[in-house]
């Protein structure tokens, strides 16, 4: 407990910001001295010990002026800030590192040219064909999985009772766990080889939609269930048929949440590589038709360029990775803007 116990039971001591900074500085200083005088060494070790010593000194000083509850409060504040810091560091370093390495090969030429006739050592070529491929494949996958996923979600949340509904729900749950390579393998066996349709962007879109479907279904189902029953009843009481009430009242009310789910699914599959190897296969030149013949995509582009030992190819891989992040970001922002326009509140 505090040594200078406050007179009033309502008032308690408060740690001055200056003493807090001094305490942390003292902890870091002690660590520096310890690393200087003793055999302790190493940069990571120093950071860890300095962090622990600084925190301990901070809490010790706080304990001298404040009560137990505020010290615990400060301890958890430190833990939370640390956790947030670690998350931001991980995310930030991926972004910053990708951006730093990616800008090198990123220019207008990169966005407007394909890899047609470009060797791994050549300092030329671009990702135009892959950007086209990714956009077409993800768009097709979205066109396949969102309408069907929404219908399944509507069935599950509005109509689904009994055996069939729980069967559907189980199947969807199992689908969430399908490894992406298995989805690719299935389309490869069934469509590419089995039906003899060969590699194509559309085959890739089908594999991706297998991965998107369960995410769309489950997130939309949850969002539709969140729409209050009173809104449905208000619609029924106006003599609005059930299907119209779902279409015009329930879905618009849930639209922001549904969009978030769809964007999550889109973001998840845009970076998929494994299933594309077996379905789109990859291609060096511009191929706009997704329905026949192998097509490239950004993940495949990154994969093939990064497998090369030559600097120019690796630079292209980083530029492709940066483009991929930007594409996902743009799609997410666009979807947000579209749903915001629909909402009045």
């Amino acid at each position, binding site marked *: 407990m505090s040594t200078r116990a406050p007179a009033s039971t309502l008032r308690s001591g408060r740690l001055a910001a200056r003493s807090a900074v001094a305490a942390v500085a003292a902890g870091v200083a002690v660590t520096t001295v310890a690393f200087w005088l003793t055999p302790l060494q190493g940069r990571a070790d120093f950071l860890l010990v300095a962090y622990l010593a600084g925190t301990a000194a901070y809490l010790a000083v706080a304990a001298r002026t404040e009560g137990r509850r505020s010290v615990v409060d400060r301890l958890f504040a430190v833990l939370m800030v640390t956790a947030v810091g670690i998350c931001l560091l991980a995310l930030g370093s991926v972004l910053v590192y990708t951006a730093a390495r990616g800008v090198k090969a990123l220019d207008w030429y990169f966005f407007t040219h394909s890899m047609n006739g470009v060797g791994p050592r050549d300092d030329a070529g671009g990702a135009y064909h892959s950007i086209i491929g990714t956009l077409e494949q993800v768009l097709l996958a979205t066109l396949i999985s969102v309408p069907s996923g929404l219908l399944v979600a509507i069935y599950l949340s509005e109509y689904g009772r009994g055996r069939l509904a729980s069967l559907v729900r189980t199947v969807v749950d199992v689908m969430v766990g399908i490894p992406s390579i298995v989805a690719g393998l299935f389309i490869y066996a069934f469509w590419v080889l089995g039906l003899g349709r060969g590699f194509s962007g559309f085959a890739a879109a089908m594999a991706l939609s297998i991965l998107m479907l369960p995410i769309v279904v489950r997130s939309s189902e949850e969002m539709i269930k969140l729409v209050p029953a*009173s809104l449905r009843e208000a619609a*029924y*009481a106006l003599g609005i048929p059930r299907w119209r009430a779902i279409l015009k009242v329930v879905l618009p009310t849930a639209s922001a949440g549904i969009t978030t789910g769809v964007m999550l699914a889109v973001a998840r599959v845009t970076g998929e590589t494994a299933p594309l190897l077996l379905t789109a296969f990859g291609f060096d030149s511009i191929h706009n038709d997704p329905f026949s013949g192998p097509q490239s995509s950004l993940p495949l582009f990154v994969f093939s360029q990064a497998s090369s030992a030559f600097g120019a190819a690796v630079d292209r891989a980083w530029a492709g990775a940066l483009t991929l992040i930007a594409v996902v970001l743009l799609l997410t922002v666009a979807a947000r803007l579209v749903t915001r326009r629909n909402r009045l509140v």
Partner: protein
Amino acid sequence: MKRIEANHVSAWYGGFKAVDDVTLAIEPKQVTALIGPSGCGKSTFIRTLNRMHEVIPGARIEGEVLLDGEDIYASGIDPVSVRRTIGMVFQRPNPFPTMSIRDNVSAGLRLNGMRKKAELEPVVEKALQGAGLWKEVRDRLDKPGASLSGGQQQRLCIARAIAVEPQVLLMDEPCSALDPVSTLRIEDLIAELKDMYTIVIVTHNMQQAARVSDSTAFFTLEVSGDPGRLVEVGPTSKIFTKPGDERTEAYITGRFG
């Protein structure tokens, strides 16, 4: 002008019987108040009158409800058309959150296929005037319905219900979430609407029942877990001055419930 006759109506939620054998006639151009202690099945009963009860999974009813002599539960009757004829206002205001004030009022018509703006415009104004809300919102018809105060939202819901021009209006405690001023507004409104609609209102407020209704039906339940039953029904003045049953007297004088 429609007359409603409920004959031996019982209602269940799954295995639980909430309303037992209610027989009650609701006269046109009158306000009928349903009163009784909490849980006695007033909401359940009023919802059987426009087939809203069956919307709840597992809920069912027995008996018949005659609308000008025609059983609304007969086979071949479309519940959607029943609800178009018998409108409902709920206890808590529930405007559609994604729609503007204008679209909320016209929702019933628009979602039933009437699209022409020129035809909707006068309907919206008339309904809002009918609900006593027009003056307050005419400058902001494009604002969201949820941006109104609670009392305004409830009047918006009434406007929405009368915009489809039903013959009967069911109101389940329409004022329970409102302040005295909004409550009086809605009571005035009920007095005006009664010339055009058959009105059934559920209320916990004895003064309100006495003020607005022409006849009053008293429901009760013996023990919780038992189904609710109709004790008596009669002209409001009689129920409040010379009730025929001692349970009614105990309830309206505040000795019970």
